[in-house]
């Protein structure tokens, strides 16, 4: 199996290298030009697909969640079929990795995403007991680093390497349990700050380890910081922006993208949320679907350009699975055209028919080159 999977990975690497090099720019070059503010041919297109890739590579979800080579193989299989621009270099259950590494238990079902079993921090004492993860042996962190190294060695010079981690607020929600963390904002706010202080340290150690092993971009997903649904704008400015900002300030410049904050349309003024994200030091602001269709995206882009921050726009899983893909993509590209834009599939569901994913990638490429 070992030699077999290496051979498979090598074949996939060749395919990906070929199609990336046959375009005007490779995804890495496109990303670098974007970063310098130069014009590019089209946006990079990235697919947030994880469990979906398992059956494509004839693997179970559990296998790709436990084995770094299988994960790389599944990501490259999906990428070489769909011709997207960057794989996601981390295990599918990216909300669990840091928590597992510091001692929280994770349950691995055979064919769906692993889940955290129960909160690790029930009392102040539990927090006092927690230490920083040892990168060589904590949970799946050594394997996560291995995934990045493996990819970097094979495709690092051509292809943009992105890895998903979580922001301190989302990590805290997993460790403490979301409801209790939120209730603590009323019952025991000092405790919330202490938990966040700890999470900042873990996030910094983990993200820097991935970057120093060759990752180009760390994507901080923060679903638990979705505006209105999980946190009020006030608490977002008070508890999310400063702590995430502290993490970003301790990473190499422009190496972090903040993603997965849904619901900016729910804020009294979405511009303030975007400004908060910029102030935290993200190199790109992600505006997911349906937010990107509910706010003035052109204005958002103007704000971002002024601050030299890129725009990532999302297309929803629902649209990719059932909707009018071409219409949605052209709506987006019309507004968010020009440099500094990346198009991101918010998520591709496990059961999404492959031809619909191909249609999505193809639409981004063809519509933006018109």
């Amino acid at each position: 199996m070992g030699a077999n999977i290496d051979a498979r990975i090598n074949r996939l690497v060749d395919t990906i290298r070929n199609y990336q090099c046959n375009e005007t720019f490779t995804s890495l070059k496109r990303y670098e030009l974007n970063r310098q503010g130069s014009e590019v041919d089209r946006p990079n297109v990235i697919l947030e697909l994880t469990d979906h890739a398992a059956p494509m590579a004839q693997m179970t979800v559990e296998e790709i969640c436990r084995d770094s080579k299988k994960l790389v193989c599944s990501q490259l299989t999906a990428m070489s079929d769909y011709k997207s621009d960057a794989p996601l270099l981390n295990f599918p259950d990216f909300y669990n990795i840091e928590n597992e590494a510091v001692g929280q238990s994770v349950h691995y079902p055979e064919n769906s995403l692993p889940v955290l079993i129960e909160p690790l921090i029930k009392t102040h004492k539990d927090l006092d007991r927690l230490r920083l993860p040892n990168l060589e042996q904590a949970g799946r962190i050594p394997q996560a680093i291995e995934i990045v190294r493996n990819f970097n060695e094979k495709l690092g010079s051509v292809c943009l390497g992105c890895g998903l981690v979580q922001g301190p607020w989302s990590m805290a929600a997993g460790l403490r349990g979301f409801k209790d963390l939120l209730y603590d904002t009323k019952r025991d706010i000092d405790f919330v700050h202490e938990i966040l202080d700890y999470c900042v340290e873990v996030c910094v150690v983990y993200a820097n380890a991935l970057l120093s092993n060759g990752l180009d971009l760390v994507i901080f997903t923060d679903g638990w910081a979705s505006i209105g649904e999980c946190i009020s704008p006030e608490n977002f400015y008070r508890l999310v922006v400063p702590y995430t900002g502290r993490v970003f300030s301790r990473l190499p410049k422009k190496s972090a993208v903040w993603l997965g904050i849904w619901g900016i349309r729910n804020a009294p003024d979405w511009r303030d949320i975007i400004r908060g994200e910029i102030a935290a030091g993200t190199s790109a602001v992600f505006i997911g679907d349906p937010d990107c269709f509910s706010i003035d995206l052109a204005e958002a882009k103007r704000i971002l350009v002024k601050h030299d921050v890129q725009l990532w726009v999302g297309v929803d899983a629902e649209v990719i699975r059932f909707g009018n893909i071409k219409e949605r993509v052209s709506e987006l590209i019309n507004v968010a055209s020009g440099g500094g834009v990346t198009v991101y599939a918010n998520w591709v569901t496990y059961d999404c028919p492959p031809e619909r994913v191909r249609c999505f990638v193809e639409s981004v490429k063809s519509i933006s080159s018109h």
Partner: protein
Amino acid sequence: MKKDEVLLNLQNAVVLANFEDALSWTGYGLKEGIPPFELITEGLSKGMINVGKKYEDGDYYVTDMILSSGAMNEALTILLPFLKKRKSKYLGKVVLGSVTDDIHDIGKNIVATMLIGVGFDVYDLGVNVSKEEFINKAIEVQADIVGASAFMSSTYLYQLDIKKALDEAGLTPKVKYIIGGGAVYRQWAREIGADGFANDALEAVNLCKSFVSAKGV
């Protein structure tokens, strides 16, 4: 202090998500001899209904509803033991859960709290609940209503599996089947033959109320 004032203070504690006040006014109300069921229906629950209205009017976020339901749950920890002793007070029994492979539960939890608040006996099975678990629990507790939540376009199909399993187990039409969650629409509920659908927790409460007649309240 007059009973009405205590109940009003309790309502306000829930509306403002003041955990401490919710606890202390509940304790005070009990000491003053206000029946636990009244503290729930006239105090906590009315507060929660106000919260729901504020949400509908756009004055409150989902996160405000979660915090308010936290204040209410805090008070319920004192009150529920009294109610458990007098089961006849319940409006009906509801089994709730998020479907297989789905770990989203914020919306379902709000529905559960609101249902408890208005007097339902709620068995919340949590997340990633299989059809077998729904059926077994419904049989075990003789549920009046089974409610399934789904939040993703890859998981809502499980709501159909649950419907089929309820039919096969001979539980329908006596047991009412309702569905909801971010990924679900009214049309889907009709397609799978569910008895009801709700867009939000208030609608869910009204739906459940419409299915059961008060039992001994």
